[in-house]
């Protein structure tokens, strides 16, 4: 037996069953339902951040200002090319750069070099600092906008547990046309089901708090026997 993988037609059938309009188009047309399904897919990815990828962004010498890929939904982090040692680039703020060296540093007039920081700007742009000194690529790790389902046989990249929430949310979007109260019950169901998907996300990313640095007791490097042995050995030097 195989694991189910929803196609666009499967989603639509499930929604039509929920709406009790299985056989023909009545209040909801096929193209309308397809629209709701794609919006529901976007919403599930927004809520769960399950799709993630690395994508290169071309940069050129002496230019600081770049756009994110058009299909980036949530940019997460960036790292430099092998040319720059594949080091992580750190997010900062324009005002933080202004404050360097007591506010006396003219960073905007700085010469080009290996970039080590970037300033996210607007929703789709970023500024590399220092400006790159060579033509290369930086790598963005992001959550992309999911590819829309167009043909009836198209499938999503989401795992099954996340796929199941798509039809619930799409049914909510469709039902709002007819009965707001029933629609809200679908929304409630979606939020309950979403918890199981978020559990999957947590398992996948092994999240630790990223904003506050975890305390020493959370230092996982000690779980590695060779590191532990090395650290312990230093005590006797």
């Amino acid at each position, binding site marked *: 037996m195989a694991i189910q993988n929803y196609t666009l037609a499967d989603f639509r059938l499930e929604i039509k069953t929920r709406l009790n309009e299985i056989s023909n188009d009545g209040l909801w047309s096929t193209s309308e339902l397809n629209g709701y399904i*794609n919006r529901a897919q976007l919403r599930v990815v927004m809520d769960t951040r399950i799709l993630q990828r690395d994508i290169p962004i071309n940069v050129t010498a002496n230019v600081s200002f770049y756009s994110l890929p058009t299909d980036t939904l949530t940019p997460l982090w960036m790292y430099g090319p092998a040319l720059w040692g594949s080091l992580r680039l750190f997010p900062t703020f324009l005002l933080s750069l202004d404050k360097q060296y007591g506010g006396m540093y003219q960073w*905007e007039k700085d010469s080009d070099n290996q970039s080590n920081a970037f300033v996210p700007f607007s929703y789709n742009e970023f500024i590399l600092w220092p400006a790159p000194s060579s033509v290369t690529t930086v790598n963005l790790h992001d959550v992309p906008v999911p590819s829309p389902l167009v043909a009836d046989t198209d499938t999503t990249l989401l795992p099954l547990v996340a796929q199941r929430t798509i039809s619930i949310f799409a049914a909510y979007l469709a039902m709002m046309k007819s009965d707001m109260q029933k629609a809200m019950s679908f929304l409630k169901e979606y939020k309950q089901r979403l918890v199981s998907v978020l559990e999957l996300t947590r398992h996948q990313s092994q999240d630790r708090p*990223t904003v506050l640095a975890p305390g020493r007791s959370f230092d996982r490097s000690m779980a590695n026997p060779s590191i532990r042995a090395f650290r312990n050995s230093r005590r006797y030097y």
Partner: protein
Amino acid sequence: MSEVLNKGQIRSIIETYLMNTSSDVNSLSWSIAELDGYINEATLYSQQITQFYEDFENIVCTASVSTYTGSPRVYQYQRFTWDRDFLPQTNEYELDRDDPSWRLASPNNPFRFYFPQMAQNYQIVPYPTPSQNGFQYAPFSSELGVVANFLNADGVTADKTYTFNQEFGIVIGFQDTQGAIIMFRPDNVTDPFIANKITYAASAELGELQIYSTDELNIGTSMVRIPDTMVSDFDVPQLPQQCHFGLVFYALMKCFMREGEFQDLQLASGWFEAYGDWMESVLENKARRWATRVRSMEPFEDGSLFAKRLLAVGYPQQLDLKPSY
């Protein structure tokens, strides 16, 4: 199909929800102009809530001119520079306190600025008054040269498929390799709406660049923008694509809130709840952008992000909103 929706597509979804497909402007229900108005209002309101759309702009300085007018596109200023140096904000009280004769100071290189008055557009006074004219290239003349190149969608490499001829016009594509961080902005004098505002490549339809300035010897500003008013049905809201569908819900709320035969405050409330739910997800997602960027010492925000922003920008008072909003 993409999740980028233009004004026409958003209106079409609204009309589907309203089961209102009449194009008769005299129909009793909701006219196209009315729905367009709601969509534009939704865009502004969503921008106020999310503050997603930021922009740069230069204010060209003229020697010995003290007061400058900010652009009408500004919602809130974030940062000022003069000649690419950070310009801290001050006010007249501080200047009086620190140097009683500051009003008589001779023109020099500015190192502070203040807002002397409040009006529709910001008034800006750099202090001291600039003593030099800033860089700008306008209008283009045969002496200065006119042509550069189109850029590909990556914003970096030149698009060699365009040749410049009478049909396409003459300009566009600039980069300042002398250190200005603003490389090239789309020509928003002629047409601010480039689909999704991602590509820097101009098209034949955009016309030519009219003015170009750098921030050398000028005031450079970064700001949270007021989105441009959408006119054509092909105009795209200047918000990320995940916000576009949320605008539908806001406009529907406005449709049912309108005084008259179709008023239904309960439905309006329901649509506003749907808008709040969608925008909460958008804001939650926004909070997770660049996850390692330290914004506050609190690792997690309590409660609803949307509700907090709603308190800051106001909510539709006709609706009896639940305490959570």
